[in-house]
C-alpha cells in the first residue's frame, strides 16, 4: 500500500479553489440548516450529518464526469450536492414532499437522481457495493467508457459484501473506484474495535486492487488522489480502492448522544476542519479575501434559504398515489 500524501501542494487555479471552497460550504451550511429543521420538527426519521467530511466528497467528486455513475450511503447529502443535485430537491425530500428528489419516499438516507447518474443512498451498510459492481458491469459489457464511484464507510469493510465485491471487481476487471470514507467509527464502534487489520487499503491490495490512502481533510489532496485512481481505472487497470481518512464532527445521527468518544478527541480533529484548513491555505497564497468569503457565504445562504422555502411551500404526494410506483403489479 502507498499512502498518497501530496509531496508538494498540487497546483490549483484561483477559480477552482474558490469553487471547491464553495462546494464544501454548501454542504456545511445545508447540513447545519437540516439539523436546525430537524430540531424544529420539520425533518424526521434518521438524519446523518457529514459535517467534518466535506473534503472527501467534494475533492473526490471532481474526478468523475457526468457519464460516470455514483453510488453512496445514507450519509449522502454531501455527495448529492457535490454531484450537482439542487439543494431544494434534497431539502424537499427530507421534508417528505413530492417535489423531493425521491418524491418523499426516501428521506435523508435515499436520495436518487438518474439524470445525474446518482444511483442513490443505500442504508443497508455494504449494500451499495454490489450495485456498483453491476453498474460497472453494464458499462463494461456495453463498451461504455464510464466508470462507477462507490462510496462507503469504514463500517462496511466488516460486511461480507465488501469482500465479495472487491473480489468480483478485481476478477472481472470492473471499472469501479471504491471510496472508503474512513471516519474511524461505525456508529459507536471505533475502527480498531471492529477490524483486526485496520489498514483498509491493505485489504484491497490482497484482492488484487490498486489501493492507496489519502488525508481526507485536505480537499486538494483528495482531488489529486481520486483523479489518479480514476485515471488508473479509466486506463483499464481494473478497480481501485481509495481510503479517505477523515472524521465526523457531529454524532452518528441526530439520535446519537455521542458517548463513545472523548470531547478532547473531537476537539483535536476539529483543528483539522477541512474548510478552515483550506481557507487558511488559500488566504496564505493570496487566493482568498474576506470579500470573497463573504460573497460565497451570502450566495450559499441564499441557495439554502430558497431550498427551505421551496420545501416548505411544496405539496405532499397525494395518498392516492401511495402504491403507484410499487413494482411487479399487473399492467392493465
Amino acid at each position, binding site marked *: 500500500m502507498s499512502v498518497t500524501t501530496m509531496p508538494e501542494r498540487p497546483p490549483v487555479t484561483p477559480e477552482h479553489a474558490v469553487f471547491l471552497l464553495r462546494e464544501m460550504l454548501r454542504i456545511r451550511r445545508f447540513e447545519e440548516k437540516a439539523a436546525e429543521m430537524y430540531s424544529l420538527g420539520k425533518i424526521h426519521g434518521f438524519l446523518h450529518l457529514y459535517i467534518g467530511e466535506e473534503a472527501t466528497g467534494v475533492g473526490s467528486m471532481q474526478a468523475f464526469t457526468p457519464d460516470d*455513475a455514483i453510488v453512496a450511503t445514507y450519509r449522502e447529502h454531501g455527495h448529492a450536492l457535490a454531484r450537482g443535485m439542487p439543494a431544494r430537491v434534497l431539502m424537499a425530500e427530507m421534508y417528505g414532499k413530492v417535489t*423531493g*428528489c*425521491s*418524491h*418523499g*419516499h*426516501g428521506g435523508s438516507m*435515499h436520495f*436518487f*437522481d*438518474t439524470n445525474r447518474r446518482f*444511483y*442513490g443512498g*443505500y442504508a*443497508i451498510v455494504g*449494500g451499495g*457495493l*454490489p*450495485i*456498483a*459492481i*453491476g*453498474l*460497472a*458491469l*453494464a*458499462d463494461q*459489457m*456495453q463498451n461504455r467508457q464510464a466508470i462507477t464511484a462507490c462510496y462507503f464507510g469504514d463500517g462496511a469493510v466488516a460486511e*461480507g*459484501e465488501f469482500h*465479495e*465485491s472487491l*473480489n*468480483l471487481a478485481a*476478477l472481472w476487471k470492473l471499472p469501479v473506484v471504491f471510496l472508503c470514507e474512513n471516519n474511524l467509527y461505525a456508529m459507536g464502534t471505533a475502527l480498531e474495535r471492529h477490524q483486526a487489520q485496520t489498514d483498509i487499503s491493505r485489504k484491497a491490495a490482497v484482492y488484487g486492487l490498486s489501493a492507496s490512502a489519502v488525508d481526507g481533510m485536505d480537499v486538494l489532496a483528495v482531488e489529486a488522489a481520486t483523479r489518479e485512481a480514476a485515471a488508473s481505472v479509466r486506463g483499464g487497470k481494473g478497480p481501485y480502492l481509495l481510503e479517505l481518512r477523515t472524521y465526523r464532527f457531529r454524532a452518528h445521527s441526530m439520535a446519537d448522544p455521542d458517548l463513545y468518544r472523548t470531547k478532547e478527541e473531537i476537539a483535536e480533529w476539529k483543528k483539522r476542519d477541512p474548510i478552515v484548513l483550506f481557507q487558511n491555505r488559500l488566504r496564505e497564497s493570496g487566493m482568498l479575501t474576506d470579500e470573497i468569503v463573504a460573497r460565497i457565504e451570502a450566495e450559499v445562504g441564499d441557495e439554502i434559504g430558497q431550498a427551505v422555502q421551496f420545501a416548505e411551500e411544496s405539496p405532499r404526494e397525494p395518498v392516492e398515489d401511495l402504491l*403507484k*410506483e*410499487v*413494482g*411487479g*403489479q*399487473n399492467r392493465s
Partner: protein
Amino acid sequence: MSKMTYREAVRAALRKALHDDPRVFLMGEDVGRYGGAFAVSLGLLGEFGPERIRDTPLSESTFVGAGIGAALGGMRPIVEIMTINFSLLALDQILNNAAALRHMSGGQLRVPMVVRVATGGGRQLAAQHSHSLEGWYAHIPGIKVLTPATVADAYGMLLAALGEPDPVFLFEHATLYSLEGDLAEEAGPCDISRGEVRRPGRDLTLITYGGSLGKALLAAEQLAAAGLEAEVIDLRTLRPLDAQTIVQSVRKTHRAVVIDEAWRTGSFAAEVSAQIMENAFDDLDAPVARVCSEEVPMPYAKHLEDAALPQVDEIVAAARELVPRHG
C-alpha cells in the same frame, strides 16, 4: 408441437432470449463450464461465450446485487441461484434493493432483472437443499413471483419475465426438470397474470402450484375413480395472485383444498385460504383444507422425507373429508 423436458424448455427460452436481445446475459454459480447445477444451461457457454454465460464466485449477495446494478445500467440480466436455501444469502439485495428501489427512488429506478431459483424437496437432499420458500418471496411487494409447473410455462414464463420492467423471480421445482411435455412450435411469452384450471371439476377445488401440481392431478384422478370430480387450479403466479380464478372455482364447487409444499404455518396456502374466506365465504360448504409439509427441517431418509412432504393419498384424504357422503 415438440416434446421436450422442462429443463430443455428453460434452456430453449434462455437460448431464444440470448439470441434475440444483446442485453440479455445469464450469470450465476456454475452456469458456464459446468453447465448449470441442474444442467439447464448446458451448451450455452459454447454458443454465447463467457461474457454472456457468466460464471460467478460463491457470492450470492453480490452477484444478485450486481444483477440489480446491471439492470439499472441497461442490461437484462438473468441471475441463476442454484437452490432456494442459498438465496437467503441474497435476501438483503432482493428485499432492500431489487424490490424497493423503484418506489424508494420516487419511480426513477427500474430493475428489469430475472432471477431463476431451483426450489423444493423430494430428492433426499436433507435440510439445507430442499425447502419451498417461494411463499416468503411472495410476501414482498415490488417483485413478481412465478412458479412454472409445466413444460410450456417453463418456456413461456421465462420469456414473459424478460419483458417485465421490474424484478421477476421464477421458482423452478427441482423435481420438474426431467418432466416431459409439449411445446408448441409458435410458443412465445405467455400470460403471467392468471392462474390456470388444469382439470375442470364440479365437486371440489384443489389449488396448488409448482412441484405439487402433478400430485394434485394424480389425486384428482383417484378422486374421479371414487366419483368425485375435482377441479385443479395451478396458481402459476404467486405475486400478484390471481384470486379471481380461485374464487370463481370455489363459487362453483363450494369446497377447496390448498396443496403447498411449504411448512403450514404462515404458508402461501394460508394466504390462499384467507383469500377464499374474504371473497367467497358465503359460498363455502366446508372449511378450506390445507395439505402442506410437516413442520420439520427436511430429513434425508426417504421414508422420513416422504412423510414430511405432501403426498397424493393425503390430498385424496383431505378432499374426501370435505365431502360428507365420501367422508
